[in-house]
Each structure stands twice: as structure tokens, then as C-alpha cells.
């Protein structure tokens, strides 16, 4: 089951909470940061970002009015 929060923990507090777990927590934060950086730099990700900026694709199979 996916957790759906009614409370926004805030990004800063989420990172602080992770760091409060100790060295292993810091390692996961660094790993996530690295993954995010790599993701942002990958050509596939850049193309997806550019497509999203241009607007929704037409004729993508989404249900239409008729």
C-alpha cells in the first residue's frame, strides 16, 4: 500500500530526519543526490523534460470525449 500523507513533512525536515539516522542515513542522502544529478544529466531525462515543457502529446491513447 502506498503511503498517502495528509501532513507535508517538508523537504528540509525529511533530509534532516534522514541525516539524524547517522552515517548510513547520510550515505543514502548522498546516494539519492547523486542519482538525481545523474538523472538530470542523462539525455533520456533531458528529452523527457523538454517534451513536458512543450505540452501534452496529442493522440496518446488517452480517453477522449467521443
Amino acid at each position, binding site marked *: 500500500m502506498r503511503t498517502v500523507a*495528509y501532513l507535508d513533512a517538508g523537504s528540509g525536515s525529511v533530509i534532516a530526519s534522514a541525516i539524524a539516522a547517522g552515517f548510513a542515513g547520510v550515505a543514502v542522502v548522498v546516494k539519492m543526490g547523486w542519482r538525481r544529478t545523474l538523472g538530470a544529466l542523462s539525455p533520456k531525462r533531458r528529452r523527457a523534460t523538454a517534451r513536458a515543457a512543450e505540452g501534452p502529446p496529442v493522440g496518446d491513447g488517452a480517453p477522449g470525449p467521443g
Partner: protein
Amino acid sequence: MSDATDRPGAAGVARPDPASFRDPGNRVFHHDGRVWRALGARDAEAYRAVSATRFWAEAAAAGRVVATREASGPHPVGLPVPRPGPGSSWSLVLEHERIPYLSYPYEWSFSMLADAATLHLDLLLEALREGVTTKDGYAYNVQFVGSRPVFIDVGSFEPTTGGPWLGYRQFCQTFLYPLMLEAHLGVPFQGLLRGRLEGWSPTEMRRLLRGRHRLRRGVLRHVVLHSVAEQRIGGGGEALREDLGRSGFSSELARATVANLRKVVGRLRSRRADSAWTAYRHTCTYSGEDRAAKETFVEEALASRRRALVFDLGANDGAYARLAARHADWVVALEADDVTVDALYRSLRTDGPANILPLVMDLTDPSPARGWRQRERPGFAERARPDLVLALALVHHLTIAGNVPLGEVVDWLTGLGDELVVEFVGPDDPMTERLLANKRPGQHDDYRPEHFEALLARAGHLLRRKELPGGTRTLYHLARRDGPGTRDG
């Protein structure tokens, strides 16, 4: 005892609890003196998963979470239970044990808040071991049943999906920082927490804890780093939390955060161990004869019949609250001095009796209604009506030290409950003389026993009166004119 939460809503419809609305997945209702929690489909599924765990069974058996049972069907009270939002209905209804008297963190002493925080963290540590977490870390998730902390927000538990604990910031703001304020700075937290139900932000706490205080236990990690992270990283936390989960932040790491908080809370100690009131019993001027006569009078008033709820106003070390606890289901012992309340709580926690709830309350400025629409946290007198009120060696403090007119004091005391046992400490008593010494001559000329008795006679029906052997103090047992005490008095 009647309860503010029992006031009916629309005729025949269970009344939503005014403090239960922030989490849309479940909601608490009151009906006919009973407490119900209705859950939507997702929360019902979560509850069934959580209630099947070993941690839950053990916590429930030990009374660490509020006693809860599944009601049969979604409308167990046979009445339409309202749910906001179109086209939706509740999937499951639970019934909870009723809390005898609601109290709030800004009325607890240091040790009470520390014990409530410890309970929250211990439950979470046990829960995380079995893949369960809590949605929040709010101090209002805990109530006291007598001197025992109990976790009441059953809807807060849900299966975890990994990532850091969502309730971390809320826990810091409403549990950890108030405790740090007293432990590290020696400042009582109650008044400040009463003014700000959500507590202080990490950045506000960082501004308070400067210099060498930064080296104190837990400050660098949970205040300074927390504040820096909060200021540098903006945006919503849920996406980041999920991303951390995907990067390998497991329940074990969430446990490590909670375990660290547990360690910090466990080592915090109040810096304020003594006050003028903690030694009051030893410094006040009662003779042994007066004390014995007073105890006999109070005990006879209490023993006349069993009461559901007794208030002891100005309880000090709780000697009379203990007396009341023998003859009542529940006693709420109210005292303005938080250090004295803390000593009483620690003594009750160790030696009992378990049916006394000690609270920090300045009676000249009792807790007001707080929160959304001023209904979320009811004021002191709105929560329940006691069957009997003890006001022993209190009136002279309210009138002379507090400058509240005597008529106002009598009106308030007699309106608070069904019966009143009150002591009038005369103007010639050494304790009153001490209070009058710094007052303008003539300022309290109406502070006389005959005036006090005339005010009492107008307010209620006098059942008994006794002057103590010392000759300066008199006790009265009064009942509301139409109250239950008038029938057996």
C-alpha cells in the same frame, strides 16, 4: 460527571469531535457518552493490517494504546454517521475507551511530556520493526488516563513504505523542543506551548539555543542541522521521502532516527528542581490538630457517596487529591507551579494511586479554548463538570495574591461543579497576614468570614461547616441548590 464532548449535534446524529478533522482518512465521533472512530477504505485497510501485528496486540494489552474494538457494521450506533464529501461512506467503525478527562501538553509537567514523548517513540520503534509507522508525531496523539500516558490516535498507524519518518518535524516541534527549552535553558514550556499549539520551528529553536547550548545533547543534530536543512531545501517533502526510499532508506534507518530521538529524550532532565511551592507543606502554619480536623472533614465530605470526577484546585503535593482518590473514580489535581506538579506526577507514577491526573494550571488564568474555531482544544472548564470541587487553602491566594474580588471567587467556585468543599483562611491567620503584608491598607477589607459566608449562602445550600481548632480557618461543604448533594446531605 458530564462531558463537553457529549453535547449533541443534530438530533440523533453522532457528533464529530471538534479536534478530529485534519486527517481526512478517519474521524472521531461522540454519541451517548461513547467514542467512535470511523475510517475510510484506505485507513480501514491500514487498521486491519496494523491490528494484526504482534506489536499492536502487546501495546493494546498493556494499555499503551487506547482500548479499541471493532464495531459491527459501518453504523454501529444505529444512526447515520455523517461523512464530509460526496459519494463516500465509512468502511469501518471502531469504538474507543473514553478518556476520563482530556488534558493537553501545555498542562503537563516536564516528566509528563517526557513520558508521553517516550511512549510515542517506543511504540514507533516497536511498530517499525513490523513494518508499521505513524503518519505524524504530534504531542496531541497522547492523553493521560490518571497518571498513565496512552496513545489515542489509532488512525495514525499505517504500514510503512520506507523512507524517513513523516512525523519527525512535528515530533521535534511539539515534544522535543519544549523539553529542550526546559532542560537546556531552564524555561518552563507550558505557557509558550499554550500560545503556539504547533510549537516552534527548528529555526526559531536555533535562535534560542545559541553559544554553548549548541553543544548540549541533541541540539546540533535535531535543531541546528534541522534548521539548516529546512532553510536550504524547499518544497514538499513527500516526493523527496519516496525518492529516499527508492535510494535505500529502509525502515531500519527510520528506526535509527527514532532510536536517536529516544536516547536524547531519555537523557533530558529539567533544570528546575525546586520552587517556593514544593516545600509548602513543611513551611505552612497548620498545627497537627488543625490538619487532623481538616482531613476528617474533607474525608467525610468525600465519603458521603462515590463520585465520578473530583477536582482538587491548588493541589500542591496532592495530599487531599490522594484522599479524594479513595472515594472517586477520577481526580484531577490542578496546581499552578509546574515543579510541584512534576514532583506529584513522579510520585504518582511510582506509588500511585493511578486515578489522579496532575495538571499545571494557573487558576487565575486557566487554559482557554484553543485551535481551529476555538473548539479544537476546549478550555479548562468546558471539558467536564466535576461532581465535587476541593478548594482548600486557595481562596486567600486568589483573592489577596491574585486580586480577584471575593464575590467573583465564590461565584466561580460554586459554578464549577455540583458540590464544593472550600476552606476560608481568615485575615488573622499567619499565611493570610503574610499575603496582606505587601498590600495597601484597606485593599482587602471585605476579606472577612461573615462576608464569605453570606456569599456562600447566596450561591448554594450549606451542608456542613467546621471551624478548625486553631480558630483562624473554617471549612464548608456546599451543594448546588438543585444538586445531588442536597438530597443526601
